[in-house]
């Protein structure tokens, strides 16, 4: 069976000094940089790319802007970037990050539905909360407690019982629920173009969603007709119990961050206790090739600090990585979202060498077997929840 393989794209790669190896680093603010990366990922037959985003500017501080000038600062809106890339690709899934905290659920939902229309059924979404007080001040409607104070609470950084963070996840769950209802609010055959009666739509196939929750209410229906996948793929990054519950409640795919096969087994067990359906992917930050460890050490030196990440960091050859992935698969992991340490180098090792290594072990596709992202992930196309059973 094929392993699912995705790459996470962010600027020049996931090492803060990775931009230094680009010929012209300022090209990360051009469409061409991204077009080349996503084309490479598609040539490698990967399931999808994710595009990182955050509500505010990058910073090394937990909840404030820093004054560092030696790292990438600045980032495109990921949904619009994914849309820009859609016409340039034809098979690979496009999964942008979009914040749930300060945004309008209606706008986010129609943005992702539009991405699905544009791409012919290849859209996904990674909903993300924005917990920082500094980001809340960019909107000025809510006051949040400073996040560094939250992080420094006794008991470490699992925020699962912090009331502020719990509220943000509860709100995010409502946003996903609203998006899913809006995506279903037009049945597939709502457009009838019936000349005899003069009706363009059958309005009985359009539905108010009438959502009313603690944080907002949305009437519906959507302004955007049902998209090719019906339900675009919802994905969530999760490190702890609370986000596992969030993922199990509303997502199709969860990205988890074990450090070993043993931890992977434990995480899979915990997630499976919450959902039998969720596709479980593991995140790995990777530096690939013969000189991988040396390359990473050089970048660490340039950045003035050893790289830290929420995900496990792998340095080694694509063959060695293939062995790790297959070992983790035996622990119940179904796919991987690889974060290239530096692009295009580590991306090309994934698309050209890792895929070949996996294929040699009978664990990766030889060609795209479906035209939608749901299809690639083996997810059926659901009928609208509002459609009456035949």
């Amino acid at each position, binding site marked *: 069976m094929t392993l699912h393989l995705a790459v996470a794209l962010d600027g020049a790669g996931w090492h803060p000094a990775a931009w230094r190896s680009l010929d012209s680093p300022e090209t990360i603010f051009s*469409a061409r940089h991204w077009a080349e990366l996503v084309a490479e990922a598609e040539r490698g037959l990967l399931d999808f790319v994710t595009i990182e985003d955050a509500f505010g500017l990058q910073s090394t501080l937990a909840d404030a802007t820093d004054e560092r000038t030696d790292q990438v600062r600045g980032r495109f809106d990921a949904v619009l970037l994914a849309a820009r890339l859609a016409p340039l690709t034809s098979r690979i899934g496009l999964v942008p990050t979009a914040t749930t905290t300060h945004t309008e659920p209606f706008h986010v939902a129609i943005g992702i539905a539009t991405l699905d229309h544009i791409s012919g059924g290849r859209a996904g979404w990674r909903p993300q909360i924005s917990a920082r007080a500094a980001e809340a001040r960019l909107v000025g409607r809510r006051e949040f407690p400073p996040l560094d104070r939250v992080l420094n609470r006794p008991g470490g950084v699992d925020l699962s019982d912090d009331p502020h963070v719990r509220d943000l996840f509860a709100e995010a769950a409502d946003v996903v629920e609203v998006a899913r209802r809006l995506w279903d609010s037009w049945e597939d055959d709502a457009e009838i173009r019936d000349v005899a009666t003069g009706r363009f739509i059958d309005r009985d196939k359009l539905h108010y969603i009438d959502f009313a929750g603690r944080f907002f209410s949305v009437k519906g229906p959507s302004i955007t007709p049902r998209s090719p996948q019906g339900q675009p793929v919802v994905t969530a990054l999760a490190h702890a119990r609370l986000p596992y519950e969030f993922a199990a409640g509303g997502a199709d795919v969860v990205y988890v961050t074990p450090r070993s096969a043993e931890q992977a087994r434990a995480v899979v067990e915990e997630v499976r206790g919450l959902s039998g359906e969720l596709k479980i992917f593991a995140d790995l930050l990777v530096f690939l090739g013969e000189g991988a460890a040396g390359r990473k050490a050089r970048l660490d030196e340039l950045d003035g600090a050893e790289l830290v990440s929420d995900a496990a960091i792998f340095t080694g050859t694509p063959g060695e990585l293939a062995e790790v992935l297959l070992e983790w698969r035996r622990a119940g992991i179904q796919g991987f979202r690889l974060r290239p340490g530096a692009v295009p180098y580590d991306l090309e090792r994934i698309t050209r060498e890792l895929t070949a290594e996996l294929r040699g072990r009978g664990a990766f596709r030889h060609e795209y077997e479906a035209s939608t992202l749901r299809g690639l992930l083996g997810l059926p196309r659901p009928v609208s929840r509002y459609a009456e059973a035949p």
Partner: protein
Amino acid sequence: MTRKRVHLAAHFPGVNNTTVWADPRSGSQIDFASFVHLAKTAERGKLDFFFLAEGLRLRELKGRIHDLDVVGRPESLTVLSALAAVTDRLGLAGTVNATFNEPYELARRLSTLDHLSEGRAAWNVVTTSDAFTGENFRRGGYLDRADRYERAAEFVRLARELWDSWQRDAIATDAAAGTFVRPGAIGTVGHRGRHFSVEGRFTLPRSPQGHPVIIQAGDSDEGREFAAADADVIFTPHGRLEDGKRFYANVKRRLARYGREPHQLKIMPGVTFALGDTEEEAAENAARIRRQQVGPQTAIAFLEQVWGRDMSAYDPEGPLPEIEPDMSDGVSQGRVPIKDRAAVAAKWRALAAEKGLSIRDLVIEVTGRQTFIGTPESVARQIDEHVQAGAADGFILVPHLTPGGLDEFVDRVVPVLQERGAFRTEYTGTTLRDHLELT
């Protein structure tokens, strides 16, 4: 006096009765291919920009979703960003409601579009106080008109502050020295106003146009003043010659108050057209399109909006009934309300009696014929004359068919305009500000 160049834009056909869906040539209103076709046609014709409208709640009539017109559309900026991949020079203008957005987030999305299109982004700023539409939003409709424009003006000024907050050469990468951003080049915005309170740093370098082009589409006194102060383009309904000249003079006069020159605000009425090989054929085509736009059920629906009651029992091809309008709440939601329905009803009744019109013919008559009707030569001449006479700086063309409604205009009218020296034969710049001569 030098001859003025005409500016032209293409409006994606809207979700109302003017977009004809029952015609066999009518294609999908939502497939990306339809957007690609129209945008590429517009670019083939060297048009200034492509324009998308917005409506954030489906219209209702008599408490139910209106089902007679084309309906359903994408999120504007998302589809425009995709169109940036399949076009090179065409401006990309999206309508986005200021009432249901926050400045920081929308400024960021517009800056992204401007970067990803290499300087072709435009924002049509609209506002609404419509609590009906507000039901789809966490920060729903709650402002009267004066407050709406004050809020929109503060919104635009704050967006400009965010767009300006990175210095021009902020990204000065030097891998050897380890500098990605020049020290001190990313400014901090601190805004405290009546409607917004925003503090922090913007997430994008200055975009190719600096500021995406700002379009304004309201017609009220507040709207005109807002445009005079803050907009680069006005999208107006004043497409007829005399009316257009009055509007043009009125708006251009307001600019001096804000220290602006007349050429810094382009006035572009939205217009429709019908073509033919001869004047007679064009007139026949115009009449045929009007009948397609006002089908029997649509005629009754228009009547119901004025009369404020169910009129479905009446024959659309028959005479106007004697029944009086119901002046209570009205039956329509999600469109601009008709002011003084009693007076409109009286006027319609008089017109129907005078000309002996059926309900349908009456609605065809009162809901307006095409702005420009004629042979390609005569339509090109009319367009040029309007611009030379000071009734407009150009026009936003609204086709009646998706996706082929612009083809004939681009193939037959644009070349005549070019021969007259009234319209560009090649793009001379790369950004929308270049096309609109705003730089």
